[in-house]
């Protein structure tokens, strides 16, 4: 990756495309802005693109279709822009292999922050967290439904999670039987939701334990590791 990452911005709305391209340029990116999926395909073939910012709703070929094409042919990260707040859009988007999404109207700063998170992950050789949303993880009689940010117990009763609890639970569910230090947990959970984690990890751990442990004082699922941190001691299956 060069000093200035090359972004491809695909949006049919000139009123968004142009000021956004300017803003991104001011923030240290090289930006190529196009107005259709067809044009984007041409650019993708001709240029070395580091990341695509893609509007979902476009005349002609829409963003989802282009996103799937990109995912089939390359590893270029994709951030989707969507005007609809409906759940379906974002889930479909993430299933199509997008790395992230932002809802219109979005704060350009937030977009830049998310772009940087993705680049940081790519730079450190981190694995693509392909669409955690929409998936379900099963462990120790519990189901973790990422789409609804909910834990479902053995009786089929859903226990909704707060954002922080959910992020923490995801960190454990995607890394079962690994010892995670407090710093690591902070890092993992802050990756997606910046500043969502002002409160101590231990506090959140005890809240989670209260929800999922048969006996919160004597935890058998989320175990404390002396001097290390915490570990989810369970077999996790991704459904």
């Amino acid at each position, binding site marked *: 990756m060069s000093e200035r990452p090359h972004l491809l911005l695909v949006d049919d709305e000139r009123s968004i495309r142009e000021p956004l391209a300017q803003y991104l340029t001011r923030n240290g990116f090289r930006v190529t802005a196009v107005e259709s999926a067809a044009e984007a395909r041409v650019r993708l073939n001709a240029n070395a693109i580091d990341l695509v910012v893609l509007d979902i709703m476009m005349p002609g070929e829409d963003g989802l279709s282009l996103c799937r094409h990109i995912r089939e042919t390359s590893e270029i990260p994709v951030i989707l822009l969507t005007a609809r707040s409906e759940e379906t859009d974002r889930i479909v988007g993430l299933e199509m292999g997008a790395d992230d999404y932002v809802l219109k109207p979005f704060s350009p700063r937030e977009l830049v922050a998310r772009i940087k998170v993705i680049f940081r992950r790519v730079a450190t050789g981190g694995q693509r967290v392909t669409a955690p949303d929409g998936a379900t993880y099963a462990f120790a009689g519990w189901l973790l439904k990422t789409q609804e940010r909910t834990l479902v117990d053995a009786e089929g*009763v859903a226990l909704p999670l707060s954002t922080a609890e959910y992020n923490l639970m995801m960190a454990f569910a995607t890394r079962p039987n690994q010892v995670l230090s407090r710093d690591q947990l902070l890092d993992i959970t802050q990756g997606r939701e910046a500043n969502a984690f002002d409160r101590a990890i231990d506090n959140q751990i005890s809240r989670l334990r209260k929800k999922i442990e048969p006996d919160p004082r004597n935890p058998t699922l989320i175990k404390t590791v002396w001097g290390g941190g915490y570990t989810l001691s369970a077999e996790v299956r991704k459904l």
Partner: protein
Amino acid sequence: MRWRLWPRSLVGQIILLVAIALFVAQAINFALLLQERNRLDLTSQTAPGVYRIADALDNRGERRGDDRPRARFADNPPPLNGQRRADVENRAAAMFEDIGLNVRSIHVVQDNERLPMRRWERFRRHEGGGGSVMHTVGRLVMAVEYEPGKWVSTQIRTGSRPQRFGGWLIAQTGILYVIVLLPLLWVGRRLARPLGQLTRSAEQFARTGAADPVDERGPGDVRQLTTAFNAMRSRIFLMLDEKDRMLGAIGHDLRTPLASLRVRAESVEDEGERARMSETIDEMNRMLDDILSLARAGRSSEPMQKVDLSALADAVVEDFLELGSPVGMADSERAVGNVRPQQIRRALRNLIENATVYGERAHVSVAREDGAIRLIVADDGPGIAEDRMEEMMEPFTRLEGSRNRDTGGAGLGLALVRAIMTEHGGSLRLANRAEGGLEASLILPG
């Protein structure tokens, strides 16, 4: 109090009425039959005596040395012991008249006599396992004064068997019921099934905003009704779909310029101005969101599921705490309800937002009572005047005189909460707390 026996359904009422009418007709029929049967019975009791006497009188001259004369002649009134049978006397008088015999007076008495059984009777009784050879038999003694001072009398056995009539009537009524009521039941079901289906479909539609079309069957007029209902249903669907499409388009078309504005706002030099602009844009977006949600209320695609509402409230409160909002959650028991969790989260968020904006602090708790689950958000604010509470739940209503004039919103928060509650078959209740402040409760069927 309602008369419980009276069925509520159309078919039930028709069948009950027909059954009652049939029964009354059968009863009248029975009464007439019984009367006729009694007359016949009387005639059959009277006739042998009358014929014997008529015969005896006709053959008075040629007396034979009969061992057992069928009629005895006497010059005095014969001794008559027993119960007088005026009905037989009258019938006999009529019969003598019919024959053309003029008699002066008729006396009939009945007494019971123990007689040896006849051979065939004994034989039958034996088969049945009975022991005695004697049995009680009714005897009629008929004495007729045919000329002044001259009498002739005779004896007749009568059956003392009780009349068997009721069983036959019941059987007859039963057969009639089967013949009449079964087809009626069949017709009734043909009528009731499509009507019931229509009702269920309409109720489902009212509750969920979606319903399957009803099978067009049954009698012609019912089928017509069903066809009309289905046509109405698909038309409403079309309109609702159109509404959704239109709202989607409006949402998209308004969000695009908002997004553009939001991006451009970043190039404003003045930091304070920039922050205020983006705040305004966020607020417009929230209002747009509320309007779209309210317009889509009742057409949610989110499935119902069993949710621990205490955990839900706890999660929502936790998210507020993360943002540093003054919200507290009381420890609550597990309370499982069948809900759309995203919608309930949204409703609860709206209430908590109101409480923190207008009421300083939000106290959240979950309680179970009378088969319902209550999510309670109480605050420390001034409350709402009783006469304005209903109004507050209407769209675009905001509390005038609110100290926080600069806090935004289109006044859709509570209207949206109420729409979500209605969709869940629950309700939103507002009340002023005795210790001050407002208490808003989401009441859900538990």
